[in-house]
């Protein structure tokens, strides 16, 4: 009961502006796939092209191998969950859920029965006769999911549906969505600007920037092996150093930065002699004695520390655009460091990735 979705050279222009640029990608049947990117990156445009509300300027969208050109949103095997949910406020909950069945000419008794079953899946059986306005944010969320499931879609499209919820509920709903996806086996295509959501829920992620699909991969691949500086800086935190690539030795290479020469893994397209960027995750930065033992190290002036409970972020001068940050387990001695104090920092070559110079994600 699920279908693959293929985008073949899909481009969408709005006047002079190109919202989506030549995206080619196959989303597998039964997969939980997320499009991740900042607002305005074109991810919603992609979703609306899959659902049929807008047509590609170029290229083809196929669902289950079938060309979707000329097929309206009401005829596609997709169901869309809107960012604001778009529940029908003038219908009771069960009629909302049963609306797709009503459209298909299902009788009233049967509609009611199916609506109750679906409300059972999302654990809202008691609310069938309530008005939408009486429900909490999380409950409305689940009604929207039930309403979309009612039409037995082969592809479920979700447009940042969790963005309006508070943190706790959002985390609960992430697990809930994942559970529903696994239980129903429907292909889920999820749009988000929240990397945490994308990383926790998805089988694969497509990272987008300015209409271009930057990288497609599992959460682990996207996080550990970013393909472009944008991905490296948008997904998770990263310390960035710039310089020129020097000697290369197999998968490792050297980069000459203003702080010194560091060794890191050579990423996609990184070649000797070219301008490049080195990315190190804060949790891979070491400080103190452990840093001096690491192959790459520097001495930086400590600026401040942020106590986050289970860990501490330690900041020091240097790095591109912002201070270098190291994330370490909470250690009371770190909080006694004085500003300006010399602090050894370092990292292992395998924890750093070198990529050709490019655009970073905006802060």
């Amino acid at each position, binding site marked *: 009961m699920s279908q693959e979705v293929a985008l073949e050279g899909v481009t969408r222009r709005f006047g002079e502006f190109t919202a989506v640029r030549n995206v080619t990608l196959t989303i597998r049947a039964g997969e939980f796939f997320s499009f991740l990117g900042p607002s305005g990156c074109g991810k919603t445009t992609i979703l609306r092209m899959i659902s049929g509300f807008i047509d590609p300027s170029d290229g083809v969208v196929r669902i289950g191998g079938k060309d979707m050109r000329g097929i309206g949103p009401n005829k596609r095997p997709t*169901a869309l969950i*809107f960012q604001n949910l*778009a529940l*029908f406020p003038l219908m009771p909950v069960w009629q909302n859920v049963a609306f797709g069945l009503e459209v298909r000419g299902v009788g009233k008794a049967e509609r009611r029965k199916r609506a109750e079953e679906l409300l059972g899946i999302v654990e809202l059986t008691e609310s069938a006769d309530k008005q939408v306005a009486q429900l909490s944010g999380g409950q409305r969320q689940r009604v929207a999911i039930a309403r979309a499931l009612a*039409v037995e879609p082969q592809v479920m499209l979700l447009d940042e549906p969790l963005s309006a919820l508070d943190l706790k509920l959002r985390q609960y709903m992430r697990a809930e969505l994942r559970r529903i996806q696994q239980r129903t086996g429907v292909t889920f295509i999820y749009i988000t600007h929240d990397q945490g959501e994308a990383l926790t829920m998805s089988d694969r992620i497509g990272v987008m920037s300015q209409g271009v699909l930057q990288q497609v991969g599992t959460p682990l691949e996207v996080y550990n092996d970013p393909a472009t500086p944008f991905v490296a800086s948008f997904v998770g935190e990263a310390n960035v150093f710039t310089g020129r690539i020097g000697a290369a030795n197999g998968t490792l290479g050297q980069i000459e930065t203003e702080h010194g020469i560091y060794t890191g893994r050579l990423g996609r397209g990184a070649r000797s002699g070219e301008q490049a960027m080195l990315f190190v995750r804060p949790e891979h930065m070491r400080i103190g004695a452990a840093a001096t033992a690491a192959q790459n190290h520097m001495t930086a002036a400590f600026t401040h520390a942020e106590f986050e409970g289970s860990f501490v972020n330690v900041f020091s001068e240097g790095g591109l655009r912002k201070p270098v940050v190291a994330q370490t387990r909470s250690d009371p001695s770190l909080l006694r460091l004085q500003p300006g104090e010399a602090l050894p920092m370092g990292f292992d070559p395998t924890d750093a990735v070198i990529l050709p110079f490019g655009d970073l994600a905006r802060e």
Partner: protein
Amino acid sequence: MKQLVDRYGLTLTGAMLLATFVWLVGMVILPYLVMVDFSFRPNLLPADVGSERDHYTFDNYETLFRNEIHFVVFLRTLWGSALATFLCLCVAYPVAYFLAMMATPAQAATFLLLLVIPFWINEILRTFAWFIILAYNGPLNGVLRLLGVIASPVRWLSGSWGVIAGMVYAYTVFMVFPVYNAVLTLDRNQVEAARDLGAPLWRIHWRVVIPHAKPGITVGCILVFTAAAGSYIVPSILAAPGTRWFTEIIYQWFYEGQNWPQGSAYAFLLLLLCLVFVFGMMRIFRVGLSDIAR
């Protein structure tokens, strides 16, 4: 009240309150009460006023049910106004929906202006324009014959059709604005959600747009119906002699019959008809006064 006094002083506040009171009581409530009093009295010569023949009676109201011609006119006014209201809704709804949901703000502004401009011309001129259009040798018959739709001219102005056409033209704008305002507040995503769930166009409107626009539709229907039922100029110009409107009969009682009590009674019957329509609409559409006030 205290705020008013603090802000404007005792004298000015008193003057404003007095003015409001005089206006409300002297110019609104009292004249109506006088008319109500008239409507329950027989039409007497000045000499008989105050005599024993001067007593309250339902006679003036009963006239309508005794006079078959007047009763037919009353019913015609009822169904004619209802039909004009329905036709106005049919014309205005698509326009309002288009303006609210599909047009760009600039297009909507231009369109609404174009709708309003004809109303800067007075009603008599507008109605006479229709008289000319619908005339036996008028442009409508000419165009239709040229196109081969009709073989010989049609007498559009016999019967009530001329009146209905004139009223739809004159009052559609009273329907467009409330419906437009109501549709404007509809979340576009709801239309898309219904479409995404497979709904064809008619069901989107029937289940999502119309329920949402119901208060606006109710207001529009009330405005058009009361305007149509109370219209004098349109029927007096566009109706055939045999198809009068109830307002014309009221006019005749007052000015030609010089029978004010009878005229007052008929006027209140028309008011009653309109009130029944207003509350009937509110019942049918399950809309409260507070919804309408929105």
